């Protein structure tokens, strides 16, 4: 098939799709979040276990297309062990990359994520690639706000 298509469905993406990483259940999840893409019916569940403000472990279970599953799988690989701030930074870079905006990835290990650049040419699919990221960041923000509200009540 065409070159454009090959930049969307890179080898790496198909590999992540067929063998998604992080598809497991955590024993000690601190937060759980569900995301869905109403337009296409894709659904995702993200579990996160914290260690302070670091993502100690996480799980990503996605029922969806190759792009959303692969994006979630790559997310798992990159995010595990990162601090909240790093997660936010990486998510921002991924968003910018997908939307074709400028971004600064200095000092960030993107792993396989740069292959998502190919999605840019297929605007309807950007949402697929973003699903896991939005769901994760949302989970972390929830946890973070709970944390700080807890702090303010114990003071």
């Amino acid at each position: 098939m065409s070159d454009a298509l090959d930049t969307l469905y890179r080898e790496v993406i198909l590999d992540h799709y067929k063998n998604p990483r992080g598809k497991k259940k955590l024993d000690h999840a601190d937060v759980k979040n569900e995301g869905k893409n109403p337009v296409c019916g894709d659904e995702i569940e993200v579990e996160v276990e914290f260690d302070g403000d670091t993502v100690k472990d996480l799980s990503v279970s996605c029922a969806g297309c190759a792009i959303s599953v692969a994006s979630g799988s790559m997310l798992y690989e990159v995010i595990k062990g990162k601090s909240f701030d790093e997660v936010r930074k990486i998510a921002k870079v991924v968003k910018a990359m997908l939307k074709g905006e400028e971004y600064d990835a200095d000092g960030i290990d993107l792993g396989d994520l740069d292959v998502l650049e190919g999605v840019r040419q297929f605007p309807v699919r950007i949402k697929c690639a973003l699903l896991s990221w939005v769901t994760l960041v949302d989970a972390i923000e929830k946890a973070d706000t709970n944390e700080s509200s807890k702090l303010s009540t114990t003071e």
Partner: protein
Amino acid sequence: MSTLMQHKKTNPVIDPESIRRDFPILNRTVNGNQLVYLDNAATTQKPQIVIDELARYYSEYNSNVHRGIHTLADEATQAYEKARQKVANFIGAPKTEQIIFTRGATESINLVAYAWGRKNIGKGDRIVLTQMEHHANLVPWVALAKETGAELEYIPIDEQGCLDLDDIGEIISRNTKLVSVTQMSNVLGTINPVEKTIEIAHDRGAIALVDAAQSVPHMPVDVKSMDADFVAFSAHKMLGPTGIGILYGKEELLSGMEPFNYGGEMINEVRYDFADWAALPHKFEAGTPNIAGVVAFSPALDYLRNIGMANVRQHEIELTGYTLDRLSSLGSIRIFGPMNPELRGGAISFIDNDVHPHDLAQLLDQSGVAIRAGHHCAQPLHRLLGIGSTARASFYIYNTKEEIDQLIDALKEARRYFGHE
């Protein structure tokens, strides 16, 4: 291949090859391949005569309708009302006054939900739908039920994807005020026995709405013999312009209803503290309508009439049977809805065991084959079927068996691309 198909193959009812020449878009290439347009349940393409009438309207007689004395206003009004007459004839409506132009089937149903439903449906009353409804015939009632305290009940579907009418006598209970059923599912393709549900509805003192968005474009429909109280459909799904829907209603119902939208053209008299309403159909057509859309719907109706709706239906039975056979032979495909083409229309939803519907749609697009992937505005049905989304191929008068072959080839190619043979 089924016997039916072999029989029909020797005796084609319409000639899609000659029809195709009337549709300029079908010459288009997509990703280097000739377009194979199989997304007709979403919207159909338009013949040149429809495009020409739009251009002619704006180049020769564009004017606001109804209130003008000058020549352009008179010509525009006459063309607008002639289209209404054609619609009435097309569906067997006794009077032109029973044809109301809306934006689409969705607005037609909302009109009934607001102008009839909110006056006649209250707490504890029942609204009966089916499990296969499009959001257009579901969400307005979910919202109404939430607002009024009415209850929703659904006629279930069986394994085949047909309505299971066993308990219909209880489902359509004495406190049922409205039964609203699609005549043809946009996901399963199923053609429902609306006459029967209408009869039971009437027996219970309820009124019956038919969502005909997928039926009027694809088969002969006669609103009078069907005895529906309201019928809703869209022009854009039957060769016509976007932005035009039709609501047919029984005269005594429409006459007894308050308006939906308020404004110019729908009044009889207005004072600063009082207003009363124009006669049908104008009471329901507030403001400047989509005049160009309505007048360019006329040639679309002429075009379908010339072909004959029975022939349209027969052509789609053939294509559907052929497609069901070929899809089944692939082995990896699960098809939803009845497998007998006589029981269904040409909207075929399916999934591949290994390639997600979105990826299928994306990969098929590379071959120029346009199908739709998603929940097709029927989320509850998809949840019931236990799936998030399906791929859907849907046909119209210009589609050919060769195009079905291209669809099948592209599906095989997509599987190969994803590493499945």
